[in-house]
């Protein structure tokens, strides 16, 4: 494949940028509906799509050798692995012979109704 065939025209990048802007607008408005599944889908789902488009189009993963795609995919797998191995510890307020006093106090205050999780009540 020649050099020219490897390169996209500028309009291609503008098009991708426009799509990203639209997706950004959707991800901002989605949570405003205050429906949990819509919030999850528009916040995390669209974030994933945007990250994919940036990596593939703007970082030119679609134009690099297969080897680079494997490397990038491997980093994603390792990131998930890291989250999976770390979450059982860092997502808890206590464990074997330890606890997080600030978390426990915050949760107790929330349970007692002293604090609401609604941001505007803070």
């Amino acid at each position, binding site marked *: 494949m020649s050099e020219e065939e490897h390169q996209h025209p500028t309009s291609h990048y503008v098009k991708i940028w426009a799509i990203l802007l639209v997706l950004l607008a959707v991800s901002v408005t989605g949570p405003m509906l205050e429906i949990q599944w819509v919030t999850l889908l528009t916040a995390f789902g669209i974030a994933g799509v945007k990250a994919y488009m940036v990596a593939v189009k703007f970082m030119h993963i679609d134009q690099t050798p297969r080897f680079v795609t494997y*490397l990038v995919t*491997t980093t994603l797998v390792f990131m998930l692995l*890291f989250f999976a*191995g770390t979450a059982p*510890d860092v997502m808890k307020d206590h464990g074997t012979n*330890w606890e997080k006093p600030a*978390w426990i106090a915050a949760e107790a205050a929330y349970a007692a109704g002293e604090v609401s999780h609604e941001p505007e009540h803070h």
Partner: protein
Amino acid sequence: MAESIPVGHGSDDADHGEHGGHHEMTFGEKYIFPLDHKMISMQYMFTGMFMAIIGGFFAYAFRMQLAFPGMEVPGWGHVSPADYNSLVTNHGTIMIFWVAMPVLIAAFGNYLIPLMIGADDMVFPKINRLSYQIFLLSAVIILAAFFVEGGAFGGAWTAYPPLSTKAEYNLTPLGQTFWIVAVALEFVAFLLGGINFITTAMNSRAPGMKMWDIPMVVWMIVIASILFMLSVGPLLAGGIMMIFDQQVGTAFFDPDQGGDPVLWQHLFWFFGHPEVYVVLLPAVGIVAEVITVFSRKKLFGYKTILYTAIGTGVLSFTVWAHHQFISGIDPRMANVFTVTTLLISVPIAEMMFVYIATLYGGSITLTTPMLWALSFIFEFLIGGITGIFLGASGNDIFLHDTYFVLAHFHYTFYPIAIIGTFAGFTFWFPKMFGRMMNDGLGKLHFWLTVIPFNLIFLPLFVLGTAGQHRRIFDYTNFPDLALPWMQDLRVLATVSLCVMLGAQLIFFYNVITSWMSGPTAGKNPWNSNTLEWTATSPPPHGNWPEGLPTCYRGPYEYSVEGRESDFWPQDEPA
């Protein structure tokens, strides 16, 4: 007669830069700001050796304190508790990040990759130069910390918070931040270098050199660079968070304010354990090159070693929390990490068997590099086997943070960083400097290094099993740990260390005298197959000015039946 092609297919800018052979290079261009991969390799090599002397001196100072508590240590003076913390912290940090990595990966990678794959230089020589310059800056910063208020960081090389994030605990308000900045810069340097190694090995091989014709040490450095690239991100991110905790007042790792100190341990060891294999693999590759040449045999199971290394690399990302068994991690995760830790010993054992199979039936010559290579196998096995003890979480509860752990990781890192380096340095010395080293002095240096090494760390296994905890300044404060026999073992370890450090003078004497007046080496003094031995010794800028070599076969065709000669260089047509 070997075929050759014109110089210039390797690097993009080597022939067009200021060193392109269009004018005589000035001293500064050649030695201070070089683009030549060999000179950059020498910069890494000698900076690494300088840092090794500093790291070794630190070990001497704190071991003297342990053997003879309270004495004035010759060359240092009185070792205060704060000094002790700084010394052990920086000994560990320097030996791993400023000795093992620059020498094994950067120095050998820079020197060997272009020469062994038949290229005239790295594909990005200027990035290569930048890599060393950043590395040098990082070395200056880690050492400068000793001269700032409060002294160098004293929160241990693993920098666990809250000790590392609160100056009122570690007593080194500036040193703690110098440490992170230095480590982060050092990682940037190796990322730049690693990109160069991977790209060069993938794109600049000699015509005819297929994947399975690449020498094992080149493969190992490439795999190590990929492992480093994949693992370093979390620690760099964690380092930034830690600087914020230290200097800005955030609380990422402060449990009193909702942070999580165990998160740092995860971030550190997710990098830290693959790091062991980042430095191990190049040493394994060096040993592979040495034992094939000096047993005159084909490397047994070339693809086996390669797949094993890749498998080890993948598995190395699944074992990190075995460092945290007593940090209060979820016990279910401890089970998982025990299993993966025991699993990773399988591919490493496989590598060792492959080496033994290569040696079996070979025509073995016990030269100095071969002695180092054989001792690597022997000593690393001790480190590996004791690692299995620690990998079992139940056993680790008792042994954690004792000198058993310390002896274990010195039995892994020492063979890698010191023995592996000496194997490679003595093997490629004739190529690097065009002269042969004195073999008698080399062997004397070998025995006076390896025997004391064992006398330092075997007693520490015993002390660790007896309950001697790490990071204690003066054991006389703990009656159970101040028994006479324990103190005798501490003295034995310290005296052995002094002997071992003194023996390095023989090495430096040998290097200088051999470099100045050793017998001329010629192109291929070991009758080796790989392409670097077809260049002149030392190779000129561009490596093969008469034209780059062509590769016709794999690198380990020794003692091939039907051939008069017992070696078959890669560039010799059939």
